[in-house]
């Protein structure tokens, strides 16, 4: 039984998604219960797996009992399980917020939500490059529909751009996978890592091209510098719940970069070793700068948060781009923090925009917000959190990254960019916050818009803010147990930098008859 636990995070949302399609549409409580149960079971499974792999064990699971490298394997190592835990936590908070009524503004929200989780969990667990493509497509197809959930002109426009650019990305992914298969004759990531060291000299140039094509695809998913333009509109116009869930989507790109370029094109890969080392760090720092410039130029809160997501991916990939154990460990600490904070800010922005009538989340002096003290305080805390002020988790994350950069040759660039952009983030958020909270006008202009899709009556502010508070508690937990978590991420980083552990546990997998 325990040997099958690895496949649970993949099968559970798939079955729940299919079940949700079969349930009658008008039976909302039943669908909500199914969806919630599935998410909490995934959380429990991820917790159990975390406990199992904590000692450095790598669990490999041969699908259909086909022995690797011929069959597809699922691999749960520390990195994969860490991503599973973060995904489950964000999904639970986003779903709790959706239960307030967003889930009913379009068909099949819960089924799509579960299928999105199916794609995400599968992408984190799979040990096969083509299977990674398939899971990418699953999570993208679910995300296209979720993005359009609720309808509206702006959503359609942003959605069209998102779909088209991701379809081009999928094509590039297939070209890269095809080239690698044609040259190396395998798609299993562990086997690829072995084969790439034995590649004949005349193939090296083509392997280079395939590796860099893959980087372009992952950079597109992660919204790295030249390929980030799809993100702000898509994240700013979609429903708050979906935007909160999408906070983990860019991290799939970051995860894939970390996985593929430590395992297949890592330090031991012979003539293609450290393939993207010269690209990743400069691009990440530029992304961080452009993201923060975007937050300064934003005219709406949701747009600003979308640019904060870009800035956080820049910080994260700068940490990964250092390619040292300390750098990757710091990045893995920063990853859950930035995901939780971005998700919470998207939800909070929705709470604020619901209370500002026609002004929504534009940075213009609007009506006085109901519960303005509570919402203002929460906005202040999250602004401090994401800008990286002590004593919150953003500070610890950035401190670890800067600490890791101390021994790196690009130290002035990394330190300068991260510190200056931190200041500008703070200025941008202070401007937005003061515009919405301090310069609010007298309450008599505030008229309640009854045509809104959010039911306002009978909805207590506590129910609305519970998911936001959950995410805040998670960020505080990152501070309180920072020591334990840093130990775990350091272990993860050292496991990633010794790919032979991964390769051995996959290729020596004993298939039971």
């Amino acid at each position, binding site marked *: 039984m325990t040997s099958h636990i690895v496949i649970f995070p993949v099968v559970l949302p798939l079955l729940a998604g299919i079940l949700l399609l079969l349930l009658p549409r008008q039976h909302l409580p039943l669908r909500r219960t199914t969806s919630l149960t599935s998410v909490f079971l995934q959380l429990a499974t991820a917790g159990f797996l975390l406990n199992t792999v904590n000692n450095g064990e790598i669990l490999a699971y041969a699908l259909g009992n086909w022995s690797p490298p011929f069959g597809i394997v699922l691999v749960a190592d520390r990195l994969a399980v860490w991503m599973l835990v973060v995904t489950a936590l964000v999904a639970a908070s986003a779903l709790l917020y959706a239960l307030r009524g967003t889930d009913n503004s379009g068909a099949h929200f819960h089924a799509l939500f579960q299928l999105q989780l199916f794609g995400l969990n599968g992408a984190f667990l799979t040990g096969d490059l083509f299977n990674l493509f398939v899971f990418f497509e699953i999570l993208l197809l679910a995300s296209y529909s979720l993005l359009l959930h609720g309808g509206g002109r702006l959503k359609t426009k942003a959605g069209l751009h998102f*779909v088209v650019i991701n379809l081009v990305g*999928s094509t590039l992914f297939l070209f890269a996978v095809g080239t690698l298969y044609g040259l190396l004759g395998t798609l299993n990531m562990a086997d690829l890592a072995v084969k790439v060291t034995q590649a004949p000299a005349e193939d090296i140039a083509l392997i280079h091209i395939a590796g860099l094509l893959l980087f372009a695809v992952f950079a597109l998913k992660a919204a790295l510098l030249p390929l980030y333009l799809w993100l702000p509109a898509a994240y700013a116009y979609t429903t708050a719940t979906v935007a909160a869930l999408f906070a983990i989507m860019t991290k799939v790109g970051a995860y894939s970069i970390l996985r593929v370029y430590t395992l297949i094109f890592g330090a031991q890969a012979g003539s293609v070793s450290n393939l993207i080392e010269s690209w990743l760090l400069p691009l990440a720092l530029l992304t961080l700068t452009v993201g923060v410039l975007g937050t300064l130029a934003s005219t709406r809160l949701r747009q600003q948060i979308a640019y904060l997501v870009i800035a956080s991916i820049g910080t994260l990939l700068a940490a990964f781009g250092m390619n040292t154990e300390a750098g990757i460990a710091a990045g893995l600490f920063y990853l859950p923090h930035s995901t939780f904070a971005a998700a919470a800010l998207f939800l909070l922005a929705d709470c604020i925009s619901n209370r500002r009538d026609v002004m929504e989340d534009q940075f213009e002096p609007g009506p006085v917000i109901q519960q303005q003290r509570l919402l203002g305080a929460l906005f202040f805390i999250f602004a401090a959190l994401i800008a990286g002020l002590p004593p919150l988790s953003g500070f610890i994350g950035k401190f670890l990254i800067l600490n890791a950069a101390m021994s790196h040759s690009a130290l002035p660039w990394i330190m300068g960019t991260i510190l200056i952009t931190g200041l500008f983030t703070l200025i941008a958020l202070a401007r937005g916050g003061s515009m919405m909270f301090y310069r609010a006008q007298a309450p008599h202009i505030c008229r309640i818009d009854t045509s809104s899709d959010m039911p306002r009556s009978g909805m207590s502010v506590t129910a609305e803010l519970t998911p936001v508070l959950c995410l805040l508690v998670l960020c505080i937990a990152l501070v309180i147990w920072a020591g334990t978590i840093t130990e775990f991420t350091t272990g993860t980083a050292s496991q990633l930098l010794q790919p032979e552990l991964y390769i051995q546990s996959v290729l020596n997998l004993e298939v039971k008859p």
Partner: protein
Amino acid sequence: MELLIAIIIGVLTACGVYLSLRGRTFPVVLGLTFLSYAVNLFLLVMGRLTIGSPPIISDKVANYADPLPQALVLTAIVISFGMTAFVIILSLKSFLEMGNDQVDGKHRP
């Protein structure tokens, strides 16, 4: 034969790239379709071109075609088929909501 296939893939890709950079949704959809044709053909020939050799084990033959690219291309065809259907519906929706078929979605009510 290899040269011919390579030229076909190249031409399909070039058409696909050109069309997907156009400003209206219909050429973009066609461009994406061309790109997916090109990549499907590319995946298929990555198992090398062989004539008259089966992909399934039998006693009579010694030479086999590589079955994996055929499986991969089948998956890729199914996915690109679904995606094309989705993007067509989405462009229709965008045409109906924006009142024009520009990718930029300049709104003229």
